[in-house]
């Protein structure tokens, strides 16, 4: 599978995401935010970092890059899209995912190995996990507090669209300890923690993150909204 990784000015984890894709057995394809060209990839990852220096709001300027127009069209057609950290913020700003990510409640940048529970496996990116599986991957963010209104949160819970939840003390004040969500079809997933930093023994907390990159599926059957 050809999996594109978008580089915005200020992206940091694009090379790690490419490496994770390669280790998972797929072909990483570097994509540039200003090109209007998805290079015929089968899936796209928006990586972590501080695109445009987090100016205005995190992800707010990247969301209007030329390539994002193609990503939005692809996502609407069912192409798998994974946004990690800043990528998650871009997906929320682009309204591909509901809610928003605001400054951590405790006003501190958090950097640590984080325990998560995988809540939804019926997405394009989490098919290799067991429902309820606990994993540990790095978490590093200053604006990772997931917020949405109560009606949206209830809808996400009701449709099973909370993809991952923080275990233990909530690291950034996210509502209902939400670490990741998906769209209704399950092809677009946003995740605040960094699975791409946990794909090799000896680097990071283990290899729990690899599961996000091994089984990337374009079509997910039996989902609400399909």
């Amino acid at each position, binding site marked *: 599978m050809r999996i594109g990784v978008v580089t915005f000015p200020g992206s940091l984890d694009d090379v790690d995401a490419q490496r994770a894709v390669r280790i998972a057995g797929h072909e990483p394809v570097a994509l540039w935010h200003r090109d209007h060209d998805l290079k015929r990839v089968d899936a796209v990852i928006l990586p972590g970092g501080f695109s445009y220096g987090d100016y*205005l709001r995190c992800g*707010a300027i990247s969301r*209007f890059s030329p390539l994002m127009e193609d990503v939005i069209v692809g996502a609407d057609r069912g192409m798998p899209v994974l946004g990690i950290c800043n990528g998650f913020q871009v997906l929320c*700003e682009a309204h591909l995912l509901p*809610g*928003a990510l*605001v400054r951590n409640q*405790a006003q501190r940048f958090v950097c640590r190995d984080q325990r998560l529970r995988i809540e939804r496996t019926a997405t394009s990116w989490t098919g290799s996990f067991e429902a309820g599986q606990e994993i540990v991957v790095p978490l590093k963010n200053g604006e990772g507090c997931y*917020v949405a209104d109560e009606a949206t949160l209830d809808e996400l819970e009701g449709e099973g669209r909370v993809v991952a939840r923080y275990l233990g003390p909530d690291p950034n004040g996210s509502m209902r300890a939400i670490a990741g969500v998906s769209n209704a079809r399950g092809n677009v997933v946003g995740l605040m923690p960094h699975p791409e930093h946990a794909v090799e023994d000896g680097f990071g907390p283990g290899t729990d993150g690899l599961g996000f990159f091994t089984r990337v599926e374009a079509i997910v059957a039996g989902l609400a909204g399909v």
Partner: protein
Amino acid sequence: MARVVVDVMLKPEILDPQGKAVHGALPRLGVAGISEVRQGKRFELEVDGELTAERLAQLHEIAEKLLSNPVIEDFEVHVS
């Protein structure tokens, strides 16, 4: 030339940790009796030419689409 000012504030129900931190500094400066501080953003747009109704509508759209995120923020457009 006209100046259009866009004020953006977090919605009341969204916690504002920055405003809270500023509020926390007030007693250290000997300032009492301030019950809350909320921090927002102000944008000043210098508009070339005449500010037509059409132009203003366009800036409204930009305020909603780019300058603010309607999920977490409210905005106001003022002509100064």
